């Protein structure tokens, strides 16, 4: 079967890969948006923490025999604790300063993480096998879908929706949004805002680690996987704007799809298509698709 002269397997296969990339964009830009909302910091180490999440899964399997499902819980926990430590010992001292210092500090942390992992593991990647339950695939008629890839999309969507639900529909989320708008007022009402801030950073980076574990069986696990991704995610954030949780999710997924289509239609441009879209959005809607003009 062919569509526009391209075999449907190739087209839908690339679309699915695009959707998978899009899920990672969505989960990562969601984490960035949540952290930015409360901490006013752009977390440059988000990519590095995503990479560490994948490495926790890989090393856990090699040294402790930790299976995939355990890793899916353990890696976000480990990285979340790491995040809490980073926030408590370093980021905390920067809130009164210009936003740029937070970006520079987390950039430094990303360099440290990348360097350490490069020393121990080199730049070539290691692969991580998908869990037995999700090996193989199903024939959908128009394409053959590997089960694991379907799972990645579903799991990311579920996490995104859960985050959206918690922030937009629960009392905890209401507190969080209130603290984003008026931290002093919320503090005066008896809510411990510093703890809320620490927890938010921990959960935000745990999301990145979760994405890292999901990504481990799809891509090569290597120390630079995070930095390559984070620059694209920054472009996604510029396109979508960080004002809206739902906006981050929709923008992430659709840009992944666009990238997938580009890979079929004009492969040479697939690496840059998101940056080009960013330029177009800046020209016509400088505040971003879902953003408010600052």
């Amino acid at each position: 079967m062919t569509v526009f002269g391209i075999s449907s397997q190739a087209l839908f296969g690339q679309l699915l890969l695009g959707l998978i990339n899009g899920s990672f964009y969505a989960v990562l830009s969601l984490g960035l948006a949540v952290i930015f909302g409360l901490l006013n910091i752009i977390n440059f180490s988000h990519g590095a923490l995503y990479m560490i999440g994948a490495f926790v899964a890989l090393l856990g399997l090699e040294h402790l025999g930790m299976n995939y499902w355990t890793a899916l819980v353990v890696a976000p926990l480990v990285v979340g604790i790491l995040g809490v430590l980073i926030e408590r010992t370093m980021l905390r001292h920067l809130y009164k300063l210009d936003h740029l210092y937070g970006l520079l500090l987390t950039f430094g942390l990303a360099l440290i993480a990348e360097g350490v992992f490069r020393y121990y593991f080199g730049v070539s990647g290691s692969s991580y096998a998908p869990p037995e339950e999700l090996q193989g695939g199903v024939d959908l008629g128009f394409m053959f879908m590997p089960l694991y890839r379907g799972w990645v999309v579903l799991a990311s969507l579920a996490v995104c929706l859960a985050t959206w639900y918690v922030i937009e529909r629960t009392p905890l989320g209401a507190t969080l949004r209130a603290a984003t708008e008026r931290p002093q007022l919320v503090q005066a009402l008896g809510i411990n805002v510093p703890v809320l801030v620490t927890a938010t950073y921990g959960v935000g980076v745990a999301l990145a680690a979760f994405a890292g574990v999901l990504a481990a069986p799809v891509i090569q696990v290597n120390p630079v996987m995070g930095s390559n991704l984070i620059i694209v995610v920054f472009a996604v954030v510029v396109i979508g704007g960080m004002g809206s949780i739902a906006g981050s999710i929709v923008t992430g997924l659709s840009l992944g799809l666009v990238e997938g289509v580009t890979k079929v239609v004009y492969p040479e441009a697939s690496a840059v298509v998101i940056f080009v879209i960013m330029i177009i959005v800046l020209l016509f809607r400088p505040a971003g698709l879902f953003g408010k003009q600052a």
Partner: protein
Amino acid sequence: MNLPGTPTAAGRRTQTSSQHHVAVWSVAIVLALAAPWVIYPTFLMKVLCFALFACAFNLLLGYAGLLSFGHAAFFGGSAYVCAGLAKYLGLTPELAILAGTAVAAALGGLFGWLSIRRSGIYLTMITLALAQLVFFVALQAPFTGGEDGLQGVPRGHLLGFISLGDNHAMYYFVLAVFALGFWLIRRTVHSPYGQVLKAIRENEPRAISLGYDVNRYKLLAFVLSAALAGTAGALKALVFQLASLTDVHWHMSGEVVLMTLLGGLGTLVGPAAGALVIVALENELADKVGPWVTVIMGSIFVVCVLAFRRGLVGELLALRGRTDIDPS
């Protein structure tokens, strides 16, 4: 001893301070002229290239308050243009450098035009993404040599008759270009235009309310900074006879931020001092510790941000009890 604050004391201080400056600059010039006979010239040239790069970057961050994470695009883009023209068209070095600078200025205009639509960290993210676009062009375009870059670039003859093949001749040429660039930055900072830039950095709404077209000032700062970063990149391409992907990689953008931060944001000589320290560190450490260089650079970043935000030169000035960090 005069009491501080009395008119005579203040007058005398300005006088001694300007004499002091003349002395410091004279020593610096003599040292710079004598250096290549004592220290390996290639190392010195590398320091000068990166010092110019960092000073140019600081014009944008230190004086206009705009953090660009895309300066590698100007530095590397210009290096490619200069290397290509010198290698394939046999352009003389000064023309090749001018061409590289012009391309970098145009790129800077484009980056600035797009990115000043947003402010703060969005601007930073936009410049990073745009620079990544330039990186992919350098990676895939047919004339950039892909992973190998452009190698064996001839240094050529300055103005057609002064050979730059000799390291000492090349050093004095690099020194002259650096001095010219540094002088231009110093003039810019102390001009009325520079004062307006600082005003925008300190309080943008007030600058707008005073009737300044803020975006035009920012855009011009972008172009100037990019052009001089381009000059530095083109020089570097001639010194090492190489333009490669390293020059356009985002690590390079990070490195120039680090040099500026370590030396002292918003001070004139700080970025140059930062460049000296970082280049020396890299030279010393590269063979000994390999990948740990990245870790060390990252740690310097963290320490600078947490405990050392004034940078080397900024701290020195603070020790001398000066409140304004604007030496010259």
